[in-house]
């Protein structure tokens, strides 16, 4: 068979001389060299294209390792990596459409376990992950929060919350889950589920503006829930929840998305593509234009601050289908450097020694 195939293919080969043809698979030899300080950028890739990737940038060598998960593990992350967090020595990559949590060694990227989040043959579509006392809590679009032991890496239970939960945050021994209902358009959800971390049950469900997505908690007993609104009658809006009484203290229209907190600073991206800072202590916008050197970012996609260095990182998703860029700024908003990352760089994780 093989011979016959080769013979007949000779004709084909002769004809294909002019074809630029067949690029051989570029096999990258797995490199599992331990890495030190740096950051990981999780690139979502494109829906249905299985091209989510992980970029690593080393502060010391100033080198970018593109698609490090693939080069280390010899397989791709899959479709639409949505969240990445480091807890202890492990890094957790939440892959939405593939419905997996890839647990890897945080320093090397080497796979420890692939946790599949399925309900029968249907993917639960995990979105976001937080940690509390050696447990990981993962929201999934099927309306659950999975509870996973970070040692055994097995899911012990699913807590039912609202529809299509997005982000979640831990505060005061509780978890606050933003139930977006985003897949139910136009019938969005508009609730925040409060889970008691002792009983692992939903103890309260709060009402906010439709389509809540971002959740962050500060050091002053506040939980911030940012709703995207419905893109027509209801604009985006910020709810501030008291984590003691679990009531919504305030709900105000707020032009922003993709919140990230570092210390007292809550960074977010405005609809005009500006990076602004809200101060948790003063409860006011402390910096209406973080970037001070005129750096233009086509499509700011994700913002994150490194607590140790004080640097702020902003990703650029460009046209949402080309490789993106990561910009590093010092704390005064001046650009330090930029690197090329993957498609739709949506989340950053900082690797500390």
């Amino acid at each position, binding site marked *: 068979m093989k011979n016959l195939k080769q013979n007949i293919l000779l004709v084909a080969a002769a*004809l294909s001389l002019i074809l630029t043809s067949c690029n051989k698979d570029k096999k990258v030899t797995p490199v599992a060299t331990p890495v030190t300080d740096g950051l990981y950028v999780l690139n979502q890739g494109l829906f249905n294209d*299985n091209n989510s990737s992980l970029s690593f940038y080393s502060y010391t060598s100033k080198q970018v390792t593109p698609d490090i998960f693939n080069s280390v593990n010899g397989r791709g992350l899959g479709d639409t990596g949505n969240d990445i967090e480091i807890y202890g020595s492990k890094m957790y990559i939440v892959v939405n459409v593939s419905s997996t949590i890839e647990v890897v060694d945080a320093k090397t990227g080497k796979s420890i376990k692939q946790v599949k989040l399925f309900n029968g043959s249907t993917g639960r579509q995990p979105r976001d992950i937080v940690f509390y006392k050696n447990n990981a809590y993962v929201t999934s679009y099927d309306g659950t929060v999975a509870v996973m032991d970070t040692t055994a890496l097995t899911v012990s239970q699913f807590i039912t919350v609202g529809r299509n939960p997005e982000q979640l945050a831990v505060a005061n021994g509780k978890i606050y889950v933003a139930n977006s209902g985003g897949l139910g358009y136009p019938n969005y959800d508009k609730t925040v589920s409060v889970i008691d971390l002792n009983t692992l049950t939903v103890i309260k469900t709060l009402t906010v503006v439709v389509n809540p997505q971002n959740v962050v908690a500060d050091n002053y007993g506040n939980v911030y829930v940012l709703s995207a609104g419905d893109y027509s009658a209801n604009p985006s809006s910020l709810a501030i929840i008291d984590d003691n009484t679990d009531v919504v203290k305030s709900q105000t229209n707020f032009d922003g998305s993709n919140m990230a907190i570092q210390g007292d600073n809550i960074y977010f991206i405005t609809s005009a593509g500006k990076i602004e800072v809200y101060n948790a202590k003063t409860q006011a916008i402390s910096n209406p234009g973080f970037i001070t050197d005129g750096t233009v970012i086509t499509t700011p996609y994700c913002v994150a601050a490194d607590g140790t260095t004080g640097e702020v990182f902003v990703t650029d998703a460009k046209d949402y289908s080309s490789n993106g860029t990561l910009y590093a700024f010092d704390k005064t908003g001046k650009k330090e450097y930029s690197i090329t990352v993957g498609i739709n760089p949506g989340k950053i994780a900082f690797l500390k020694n």
Partner: protein
Amino acid sequence: MQKKVHYLKSGLLRLSAGLLCFSFAFPFIASAQTDTTKKLKEVKINTKPLPNVQSLSPIQQVSANAFGQLSAFNVADAIRDFAGVNIKDYGGIGGLKTVSVRSLGAGHLAVLYDGVQINDAQNGQIDLGRLNLDNVQSITLYNGQPPEICLPARSFASASVLSIITIHPNLTAAKPYQVLLGVKGGSFGLANPYLQWQQRLSNRWSFIINSYWEKANGQYKYKVKGDGSDTSSTRTNGDLNAQEADGALYYTKSDSDKFNLHLNYYNSDRGLPGAVIFYNPVSNQRLWNRDIFVQSGYERLWQSSLHLLINTKLSQDYTRYTDPDYLNGQGGLNDRYNQWEFYLSGTLSYHLLSNWEISYATDIALTSLDATLYNYAYPTRFTLLNVLASNFNAGKWRFQGNLLHTYVDEWVKMGSAAPTRSIFSPTLMATYRPFNGYDLQVRAFYKDIFRNPTFDEQYYFAVNGARNIKPEFAKQYDAGITYRKALNSLLDYVTLTIDGYYNNVTDKIVALPNQNPAISSIINLGRVDITGVDAGLKTGTKTYDGWRGTLSVNYTYQDAIDVTDPTSSFYNQQIPYTPKNTIALNGGVDYKQLGLYYNQVLSSSRYYLSENLPENLVDGYAVSDVSLIYKFLVGNKPAVLSAHVDNLFNENYVIVRSFPMPGRSVLLSFQIKI
């Protein structure tokens, strides 16, 4: 355009991505109609049956007798060897197959079924995999437009035209009927019985009925690349259950006075296997189509050379799409779409002089789309086309020119409608035959045409009514040489064609994935420059002791580069899914009633995204098919037995990323004529 949508944050675009990707709605089957113009216009240049390559516009044709040689099961298979043709195939027996000609995109190709366009107002692309070949007589691809001018205006209104002509009854009083029974089956769990009944009712009246039933589980083996597994998996949820019934009544007083009435019904239920998502390959999406149309045609040619052509069509195309796994809290998606179209066309042509013909055509189409989508626009589109065309022959020269005027107006029930459009589109074609006695012809054409935004582009999840999208323009410049010669040697004939072309697309409609649906995610952004070459060779031997050989080779070169924005990372780079080089070869040997044929398609690698980066590469492929056909008599009834092996060498390849193509498959068929 579709499916590049990336939008997971709100889930909305997720929905639209899924839909755009899988509901490729409204490809309808069959519209049939009066094709009679062809017969009247045919000029016998040579008594030998030479392939018809010499025409004003580049032309490639395949007839029913060659379908078997091409191992073709549907229209997409039958034309995959054509030069300049790029088939986007999502794989499998029920998988979407669309065609882009000369890199212009599927929306710039008009598919005519017996002269009347199959219109998909929602997506603008016809699933050629759905068009069965059982009742097809010939398929012709015209770059630019057909060379005849007594045609409906829609024939002039696209960058290229794929004309499908159905089989017409051709019976005598001695044997007033003919019944064709056949069955196909093989891989994919396919069973496809079909029936054709031709009946002569009187001197003037006859009818033909075609029907088939196609059932398949659609399963095939494939190998995923990149997920670390090295084992093959089985593609599931690709089942298909389709039925079609097509009846046509013909009245022929003479070749110059005829009428037909066509009724067509198509019904299908299929699984959509979806993209093979790493670690999560299961899909439970389904698509139902139920399309019905009635159309009629009347043609009259008077002694004075006045030529009249009237066509009408009324169609309804119903589509239902479900995805039970869609996590919207309502048990998944269950969307229904309903397209209605009323079409009326009238053409008059007249020879002012024996070498000068003029024609005037007017088409009216009223098209509406209903969808069970929140805040949907429910658009109705009125299209009025007027064409003034002329053919002129002067010695060694032939000229054709036409001016098309398009008027489009739209109404919506929700939001705002797209603005009224009024656009003139010129075409000029010329051929020159430099030498007497040589069948060598030089030709050139220029065509400036556009495609209107589809309903999806205009209204699909356009939160604030219609998106502000302009039509997408395509200018084509073509120059070519054709040569054909009847030979008296071992070879019977040889034909050669080569065309070089330059196309320029402006205001290309592109979908920009976007987080916020309030901001239009579909815009007129792109500019594409396309430089290409189509070349073809056809030859065949004479018959020696029952032996006869045929060979055809087509080559396509396409340099289709994005020239939208000099500052972008993909400026001057090849547009997605466009191979630079493609070769298609078909060769065969006939010995008496036996034929053995080999088909080979070679495609160079492509990029699946705009950035021509190594990680965005989709490998090239070489796919071979073999057919064995045996014709014999059962009693005195002619019968055909054939066996086809597709993808003979079991090549593991994809055309569209994440949609693996089937490996080796087998098809057996038997047909008998009573």
